[in-house]
């Protein structure tokens, strides 16, 4: 990480304890990392290790038990829609609104005047290449298209950070690969900072500059992998020796952690 690039989002000693029927569960422990502006950062880890909880804490949607989140140096206490957009596995489009209206919805909540909303929605639709679907309803689109609309909707308020929680997790493999390329194209064009959760090591490595690796119970960061593969990336890169070597390193980190957790009988991968 070059020191010249400013940090946009930073986690400092983040911890989260849930109490379920009075029994405390340490979901996250001492999570610290900093994401420099414009970087593509992925987070991988076994199921249930606290990735979604961490993402929602970064977005100011869930309070942390310890530590704090800083965005542009200021502590995050509530959602900041003008700086952070959040996306999920489900596109969470509003089924009674047309596609253009869906993209305008966050702008409407933010009080942006109608004329500007229309213009920005049209711009976003062009960016994701779905202009001809402006007047359609969400159910008329495929799963991949709906996720592209969700990206357009997330980008419409012109945030600096995109937090994505397994956004392509429900798509078939071919669509998923296409969406990865599409996201990289949009990222290169908009220069947003992206924080991306996935279960797929290949996807994480293919997309990212940095891969954060998490462990299970309590969720901790056990590795920060510099995925400095050349860009622009093509599908061929996945077959390269370099790619395979880095992916093995990540896999070792995760599975090593799993044997440690083996005494609790957890087999999560």
């Amino acid at each position, binding site marked *: 990480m070059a020191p010249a690039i400013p940090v946009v989002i930073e986690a400092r000693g983040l911890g989260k304890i849930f109490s379920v029927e009075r029994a405390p569960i340490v979901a996250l422990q001492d999570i610290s990392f900093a994401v420099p502006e414009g970087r593509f950062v992925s987070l991988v880890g076994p199921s249930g290790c606290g990735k979604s909880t961490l993402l929602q804490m970064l977005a100011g949607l869930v309070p942390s038990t310890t530590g704090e989140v800083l965005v542009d140096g200021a502590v995050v206490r509530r959602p900041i829609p003008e700086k952070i957009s959040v996306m999920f596995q489900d596109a969470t489009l509003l089924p009674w609104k047309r596609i253009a209206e869906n993209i305008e919805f966050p702008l409407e909540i*933010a009080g942006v005047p109608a004329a500007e909303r229309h213009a920005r929605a049209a711009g976003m639709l062009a960016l994701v290449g779905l202009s001809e679907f402006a007047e359609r309803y969400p159910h008329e689109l495929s799963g991949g298209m709906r996720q592209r609309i969700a990206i357009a909707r997330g980008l419409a308020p012109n945030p600096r950070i995109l937090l994505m929680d397994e956004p392509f997790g429900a798509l078939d493999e071919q669509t998923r690969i296409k969406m990865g390329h599409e996201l990289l194209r949009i990222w290169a064009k908009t220069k947003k900072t992206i924080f991306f959760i996935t279960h797929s090591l290949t996807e994480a490595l293919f997309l990212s500059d940095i891969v954060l690796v998490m462990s299970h119970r309590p969720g901790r960061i056990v590795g920060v992998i510099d995925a400095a593969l050349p860009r622009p990336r093509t599908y061929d890169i996945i077959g390269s020796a370099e790619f395979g070597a880095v992916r093995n390193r990540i896999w070792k980190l995760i599975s090593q952690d799993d044997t440690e957790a083996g005494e609790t009988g957890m087999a999560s991968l």
Partner: protein
Amino acid sequence: MSVRRLIVIVIALGVWEAVRRFNLVGPLLLASPSEIVAALVKSWPDYLVALRFTVSEIVIALAFAWALGIGAGVVAGVRPFFGAVSGPLLSSLFAVPLITWYPLFMVWFGIGMASKIAYAVVSGFFPIAINTMNGVRGVDPHYFVFGRAIGCSRLQVVLRILLPMAMPSIASGLRIGTALVVIGVIVAEMLASLGGVGYQISYYQSVYQTGHVYLGILFALACALAANWGLSVIERRFTHWRELQIGER
């Protein structure tokens, strides 16, 4: 209306009239179409007054049942604790037919409109509240998170996202609730009241004027049909998108 349908109706009315004319069924059991028309000609001003009475009760009761039912359903749907506490309570209250409570409504609200309205509101409230609660609970929790992430207030999340998402389920609650409100008003009027369509029915029944009884039933039917029609207009307005996506999800 097609000619065929018209012919069927004319024949049915003819048979009905004949059954009475030849006295196949006694005059207390059945009124002929001509007797119903005669009752209408003779007493229509009374019935108009009764109809106004009943319609006002229905409209007021519907407003309360809808508002309270949807409001309570949203709260129970959003707050699992409230739902967990109120769920079993509601179903145990339901175990006793509501009509057995009617004497208490009379004691609390008197013999006038208020007791009819209160009784009808309670009849319609539960299906609306329960369907709203289930509808809200069925919404993917990510929609809440999405709403808050884009800066919605709690109220905005409910009004702009949750209620529309839950609308198909709410609409079926309103369908049942609305029918129960109409029935509730008329049944309550029949039991004890000073006016209204239900009152007309039970009064004329007690003086053996079967033509007038049947006329009252027709008016009651008209109230139910009108309420249903109004509801379907509103429903179409709010759930048109649902029809578009049949087969999805």
